[in-house]
């Protein structure tokens, strides 16, 4: 094996220790969520996970290392001895009549020696067969090291002694430690302290010592898997005189042994996994295996004892172990990894007969994403319920299926499925945000290019000829550009984008109804009739965006107020985004959004399609984002100047009727919101459909742009002054306030249809079924924003009319990860949570429609590469 040079080791060392947020917790988290062990020094990570090295303080390592290594050296001296060695203090040693190889005296050290020789022989048999395909383990010196370590462990733990399988736990550890050892460690005392500690902790002289320490630490918990209940096992049933023949007696013994075998800890564990856990999470699979009479210990013992070492190739095993050690050095996770493995091949198992099931379980099919098993197992541990199992099953379904194969998941399960993805999605985020974003972009790209109807259910047939026509041509390019492993993300994002489209469509419907005051327009939005809304959205998505403009103008012609024009512009952009998301428009066209910016060429463009509706043009030199805000604000000013000038800025009147404006807004509000961020990111994603765009840059821009947008928009003054001030750090509060105001107005003026309960009722139902999840899922910032927002608003007011379905909310709660839940739990009591979730979903709707007004024009049109 090639050992690493010191420079390489140093680089890997830095990966671990140069993290400014380094802590044991973060390192553990990275262990199962990321690939710190693969990138950094796995042996160091394992030493930390398994508590061989007590802390991250490298200064203390020297002491610990010396102590542990000396301990092993002592053990070695103690146990691997020759009976001829001089033991001066032992009187027997000098008495040759006792101390000779053939002496039958019990004090004879040779007796011990012969026993040890037997034990070593047994161990050696197994050691010689360790990883037969791996050249490394064929070398005699390595085998001797394995043998010595196992032998010493057995001598120390005589109750378990050696059991087959231990060598397979030890071998990977030795492999890891040896691979990362530094052979030339001479003179490290001279060098600076960090180099010295690196060399000391990875010294090749102490491979065996360190391996033993790691193995012992691992066996502290794994030992139970090897325990054997000898007492019970050897208990013979009393032979009753004159009872029966020897054959019967032999049968009795056999039965007694079978009974005893069930009391072996590892078998009990297998049974517990099967009877208790699997039954809970997947009754169907449980019944199937039960009917086939496949005993869990048939495969379970091997899985558990070897920690899945035989199920996967060694490099995958190492990754799996990283996660298991990191999450819990006591290996409690093993049960749930078993479950995750079962669920992974669930469909195949359900289709197989006895022989098929058995062979599949005994020889586990190879999987290429072993790193998801640990997060799945953690999820199962935390959600030991049929829902939890269902989520993992569906996650696997998405994960395993190729994008071409249609997914037939019932609509009612949709929210579960999306929600089940969340923990996995978080893993990807934490692993490497850049990679994740790239994946997201690719996925988004894919959605844009291939939006045909495989996910179209719920009466939604927006698959226009247009999109189908492009589906084929884009398929080719997808295969070139898209890494295979992104397929699950793509699948996910496709679905989410579609749902996002629905949300935007609904928002548009409401907006149009409100702003244009034409409930009987083409998009006839009958409040409360969700079916109709969807139908209408179906009808419209197939229209091109230009038709929209025409449609908008038709509707608008009844309200010739020039104030509304800019709103229409924004609405138009919003519709375009919706179309792109739905897939009815093949590509994102930044020019459509540019229209609202009133640039000269865009203005021309607008007039071509517009039926002579003039656009209130702002100064062309204005910053784009600012100009939009300004424009909107100017309108607002015209419509209704703020009642109270001393009140904080309030942009809402732009979208509401005069009666509502008269309600003073108690809090500063703004259109900037996490959702606007989200829309911006979404739009940036859309731009990514430009094949020339650099993915990494885009991913950067995603992370940076939303903040920029919010900076420029959040603190716009009602007088239409160009916004210059810095945004408040927590824009979600502002959105929340906006929400709050809106709701208050609804209380005060029930006539206002935008906030009437009947209208929200369908939104509550609709969005909690799927839309909120779709919103929450891919963009974490918006998740946190929304949840924080919802919790915040729930503190302020209670909304009696919000009693939407709460089951989905519960699931959503489960699906979110710790930072989210922490955030939320700070703000709300559990009793308020359900309500606040509903509010959150409503607010998401409202904020989408508002945010898009600002966010859409703010999309960095002149900066498609995201270089800010």
């Amino acid at each position, binding site marked *: 094996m090639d050992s690493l040079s010191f420079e390489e080791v140093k680089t890997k060392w830095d990966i671990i220790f140069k993290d400014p947020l380094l802590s044991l917790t973060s390192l553990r988290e990275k262990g199962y969520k990321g690939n710190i062990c693969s990138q950094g020094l796995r042996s160091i990570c394992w030493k930390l996970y398994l508590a061989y090295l007590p802390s991250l303080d490298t200064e203390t390592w020297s002491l610990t290392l010396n102590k542990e290594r000396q301990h092993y050296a002592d053990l070695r001296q103690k146990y691997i001895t*020759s009976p*001829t060695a001089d033991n001066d203090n032992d009187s027997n040693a000098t008495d*040759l*009549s006792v101390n*000779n*190889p*053939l*002496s*039958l005296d019990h004090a004879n050290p*040779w007796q011990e020696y*012969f026993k040890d020789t*037997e034990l070593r022989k047994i161990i050696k048999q197994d050691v010689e067969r360790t990883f037969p395909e791996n050249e490394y383990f064929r070398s005699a010196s390595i085998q001797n090291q394995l043998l010595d370590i196992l032998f010493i462990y057995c001598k120390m733990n005589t109750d378990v002694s050696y059991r087959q399988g231990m060598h397979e736990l030890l071998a990977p550890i030795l492999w890891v430690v040896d691979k990362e050892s530094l052979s030339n460690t001479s003179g490290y005392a001279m060098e600076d302290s960090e180099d010295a500690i690196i060399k000391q902790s990875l010294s090749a002289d102490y491979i065996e010592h360190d391996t033993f320490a790691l193995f012992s630490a691992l066996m502290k918990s794994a030992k139970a898997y090897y325990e054997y209940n000898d007492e019970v096992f050897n208990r013979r049933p009393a032979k009753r005189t004159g009872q029966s023949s020897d054959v019967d007696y032999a049968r009795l013994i056999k039965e007694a042994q079978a009974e005893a075998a069930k009391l072996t800890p590892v078998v009990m564990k297998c049974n517990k996994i099967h009877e208790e856990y699997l039954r809970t999470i997947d009754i169907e699979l449980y019944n199937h295996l039960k009917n086939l009479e496949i005993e869990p210990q048939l495969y379970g013992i091997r899985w558990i004892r070897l920690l899945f070492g035989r199920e996967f190739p060694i490099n995958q095993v190492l990754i799996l172990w990283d996660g298991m050690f990191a999450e819990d050095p006591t290996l409690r996770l093993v049960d749930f990894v078993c479950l995750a493995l079962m669920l992974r091949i669930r469909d195949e198992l359900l289709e197989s007969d006895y022989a098929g099931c058995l062979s599949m379980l005994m020889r586990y099919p190879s999987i290429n994403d072993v790193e998801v098993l640990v997060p799945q197992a953690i999820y199962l541990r935390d959600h030991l319920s049929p829902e939890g199992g269902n989520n993992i099953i569906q996650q696997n379904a998405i994960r395993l299926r190729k994008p071409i194969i249609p997914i037939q998941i019932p609509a009612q399960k949709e929210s579960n499925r999306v929600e089940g993805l969340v923990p996995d999605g978080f893993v990807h985020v934490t692993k490497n945000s850049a990679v994740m974003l790239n994946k997201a972009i690719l996925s988004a790209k894919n959605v844009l290019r291939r939006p045909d109807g495989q996910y179209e259910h719920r009466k939604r047939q927006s698959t226009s000829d247009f999109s189908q026509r492009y589906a084929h041509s884009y398929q080719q390019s997808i295969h070139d550009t898209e890494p295979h492993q992104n397929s699950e993300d793509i699948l996910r994002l496709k679905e989410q984008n579609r749902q996002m489209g629905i949300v935007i469509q609904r928002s548009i419907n409401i907006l149009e109804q409100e702003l244009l005051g034409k409930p009987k327009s083409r998009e006839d939005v009958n409040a409360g009739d969700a079916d109709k809304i969807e139908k209408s959205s179906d009808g419209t998505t197939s229209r091109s965006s230009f038709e929209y403009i025409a449609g908008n103008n038709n509707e608008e012609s009844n309200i010739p107020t020039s104030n509304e024009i800019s709103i229409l512009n924004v609405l138009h952009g919003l519709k375009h985004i919706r179309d792109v998301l739905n897939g009815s428009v093949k590509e994102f066209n930044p020019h459509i959004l540019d229209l609202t910016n009133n640039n000269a060429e865009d203005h021309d463009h607008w007039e071509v399609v517009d039926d002579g509706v003039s656009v209130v043009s702002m100064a062309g030199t204005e910053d784009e984002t600012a100009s939009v805000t300004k424009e909107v604000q100017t309108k607002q000013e015209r419509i209704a100047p703020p009642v109270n000038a001393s009140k904080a800025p309030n942009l809402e009147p732009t979208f509401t009727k005069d009666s509502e404006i008269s309600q003073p807004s108690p809090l500063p509000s703004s259109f900037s919101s996490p959702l606007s961020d989200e829309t911006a990111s979404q739009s940036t994603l859309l731009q990514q459909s430009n094949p020339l765009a650099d993915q990494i840059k885009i991913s950067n821009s995603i992370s940076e742009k939303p903040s920029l947008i919010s900076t420029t928009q959040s603190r716009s003054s009602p007088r239409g002054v160009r916004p210059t001030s810095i945004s408040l750090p927590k824009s979600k509060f502002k959105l929340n306030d906006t929400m709050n105001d809106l709701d208050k107005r609804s209380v005060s003026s029930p006539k206002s249809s935008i906030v009437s309960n009947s209208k929200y009722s369908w939104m509550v139902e609709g969005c909690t079924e799927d839309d909120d999840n779709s919103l929450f899922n891919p963009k974490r910032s918006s998740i946190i924003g929304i949840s924080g927002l919802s919790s915040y608003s729930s503190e302020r007011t209670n909304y009696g009319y919000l009693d939407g379905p709460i089951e989905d909310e519960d699931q959503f709660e489960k699906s979110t990860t710790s930072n989210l839940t922490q955030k939320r739990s700070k703000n709300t009591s559990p009793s308020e949570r359900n309500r606040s979730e509903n509010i959150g979903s409503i607010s998401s709707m409202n904020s989408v429609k508002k945010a898009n007004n600002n966010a859409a024009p703010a999309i960095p049109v002149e900066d498609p590469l995201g270089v800010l």
Partner: protein
Amino acid sequence: MVLVLVIGDLHVPYRVHDLPLKFKKLLVPGKIQQIICTGNVCDKETFDYLRTIAADVHVVRGDYDEFPSWPLSKIITHGPLRIGVLHGHQVIPVGDAESLSIIARQMDADILLTGHTHRFEAIEYEGKFFVNPGSATGAYSGFCTEDIKPSFVLMDIQGSVVVTYVYRLVDGDVKVDKIEYRKNYDTSKVL
């Protein structure tokens, strides 16, 4: 670490009917890895008994052995050690150190195991180690005038070091002695 039993001159069944019981108790399977027999086992049953103690039995032909196929001499190597085995009736004068030394040089052996005299002997001569395990049964021999005591030798070979345990039956008790031989490379090397 290899345990090698050196045994010979049993003369079963012609002079003695069996091994002493106390020896039989000591010689149990599972401890000894190899048996080197210096000959004069005589019958097949005794040879089979030896094979029950250890499977790896090396034997040379003595002047009373019934097996013409056995070799007259043998060389066994244990790591750096070359062990020559000869019954010893070919050596004249019998048991003479100088004559044995000539044989050892001829065989290029570090350790020469011989029998025939029925008397235990272990000497280091000219850097070589000469071991005569004596007769395991204490059988009569014309060469030996004094009382013949049953004896055998167990060699613990660790690398170039040989620890020799001598088991003798004296007045019905097993007496054990230990002799250590270390191969000296300087003397055996010819420049």
